[in-house]
């Protein structure tokens, strides 16, 4: 233990340390040692399989016919990228991501405002908002599926829709899928926004009120600009999370009615069809698309991620 240290790590001067003493060498060793188990597990489950996927994506390889494995270069990527089904799935994923993130940002902001300001039953409201966060996604999917289902559902009866079959059309299926996704994940975005709201200095809003600003002007001119960083971080996280949507689609439509998503396509190729080469190529493309989205956010919008990970 380093109990003899006087200053906490954050406040320790970094410059001016010319010689590396035995003490700091021991500290380095301890730091690396303590970090090792976590880093090794994370590497084991991500780095090796990713490299493996990159490698196998260059082969024509099906698990059912291992002897036919042969090197085909980038042909699998060509197959995927020239297939209309691939682009249809990408479009579906894009629509789901765009719709859910946009709606969640608005609802989530409303929830955060209520949590921030609520005078009445503050505890109850916070608890209620956390419930969907804890519910298993598959169960949320079943709840919404059964609510709209012709056999078991009450939605058509309540809204006088008769025999409208929600799950036999692409966009109506996606509507229900988005509803479940929004219900389940808005709490997360609203908590990130709440953290941002808490950082907006109160006196700024009060000063604006004194100057005669309306509530709406305060929101647009004071609150939102002051929590821009939190909003961008929340949007980035939710975008990448929505981009890999899988559970809701699996339970509600199993990819029928052109509702298959990017993740679902990867799953179907690798696990269901055991077309390892092609599936891994799609998986690598999925990975690259995530890297691209993250890069756009971090470079383009200058999302300050040091805020999220907490290092200063």
């Amino acid at each position, binding site marked *: 233990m380093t109990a003899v240290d006087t200053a906490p790590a954050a406040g320790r001067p970094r410059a001016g340390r010319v010689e590396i003493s035995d003490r700091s060498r021991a500290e380095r060793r301890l730091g690396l040692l303590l*970090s090792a188990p976590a880093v090794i597990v994370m590497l084991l489950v991500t780095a090796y399989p990713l490299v493996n996927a990159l490698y196998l994506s260059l082969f024509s390889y099906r698990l059912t016919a291992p002897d036919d494995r042969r090197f085909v270069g980038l042909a699998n990527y060509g197959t995927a990228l020239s297939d209309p089904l691939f682009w249809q799935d990408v479009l579906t994923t894009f629509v789901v991501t765009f719709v859910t993130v946009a709606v969640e940002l608005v609802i989530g902001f409303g929830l955060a405002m209520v949590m921030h300001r609520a005078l009445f039953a503050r505890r109850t409201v916070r608890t209620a908002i956390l*419930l969907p966060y804890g519910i298993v996604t598959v*169960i949320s999917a079943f*709840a919404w599926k059964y609510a709209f289902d012709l056999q078991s559902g009450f939605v058509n009866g309540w809204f006088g829709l008769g025999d409208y079959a929600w799950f036999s059309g692409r966009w109506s299926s996606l509507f229900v899928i988005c509803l479940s996704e929004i219900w389940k994940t808005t709490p997360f975005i609203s908590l990130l926004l709440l953290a941002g709201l808490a950082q907006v200095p109160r006196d700024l809003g009060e000063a604006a009120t004194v100057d005669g600003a309306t509530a709406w002007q305060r929101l647009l001119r004071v609150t939102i600009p002051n929590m821009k960083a939190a909003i961008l971080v929340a949007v980035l996280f939710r975008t990448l999370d929505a981009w890999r949507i899988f559970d809701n689609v699996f339970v509600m439509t199993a990819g029928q009615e052109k509702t298959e998503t990017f993740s679902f396509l990867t799953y179907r190729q690798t696990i269901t069809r055991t077309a390892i080469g092609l599936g891994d190529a799609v*998986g690598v493309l999925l990975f690259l698309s995530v890297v691209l989205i993250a890069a756009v956010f971090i470079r383009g919008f200058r999302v300050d991620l040091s805020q999220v990970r907490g290092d200063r």
Partner: protein
Amino acid sequence: MESTRSKWLWIAASALILVWTVFPILWIVMLSFKRPGEIGNQKGFLPHAWTFENYRTVFRTDLFTAALVNSIGISLIATFVGVVFATLVAYAIARLEFPGKKAILSFALAIAMFPVVSLVGPLFNLWRDIGLYDTWPGLIIPYISFALPLAIWTLSAFFREIPWEMEQAAQVDGATTWQAFRKVIVPLAAPGVFTAAILTFFFCWNDFVFGISLTSTDNARPVPAALAFFTGESQFEQPTTAICAAAVVVTVPVVVIVLLFQRRIVAGLTSGAVKG
């Protein structure tokens, strides 16, 4: 200076939130009390005739009870190991000076954004080669690695706030190193560790992708995966009400945890995002 009108607006908004968040859960509960024969005949929100039949069915089905044991066992073990690993890293990041600190945090962040499905194919092959396919460790290992980022951020944000000087103060007052650690630091750190454990547990409990891809029998298949396959199995009888009963069973612990530890979960989820 809230006017009466805006006060009522806030109350109405709160009530609306309650309905929106609780309603789907209530719906699942209602379905779980319906007779299986009611599906397709009597539609409506409330059960026509209340019954416990579905709960009896569910607990008599090996598919579900095995999955429940798997889910509980796998999630608890993964949570325990994950939180121990995350605590070690977070302690090192908060208190020690060593190279690679930033790299570790960035790496964890990258893992949190990772599209899990991209890895499922290669892991499927690897696990089959080394005999981890369809076993508890086969799920525990990926759960740990994908739950670690959230646990690491939560804990390092939390540990940074601990007044570590109190440890020395206790030693100056005559406590041994161990006493200072146990009596001063452990009580201060425990709430953060506990919060990280809740978040990690939720993550494991929720998983579906690994659950369906890396298992094939009830040897290791967790509840969400079992539920999804339960649907496809019977063509002639609607499994709807039984699935809902099973869903209620696995939702109860979540609701209890949320009710008891609401404050901790909020603190945990927002701590990473708030500076300082």
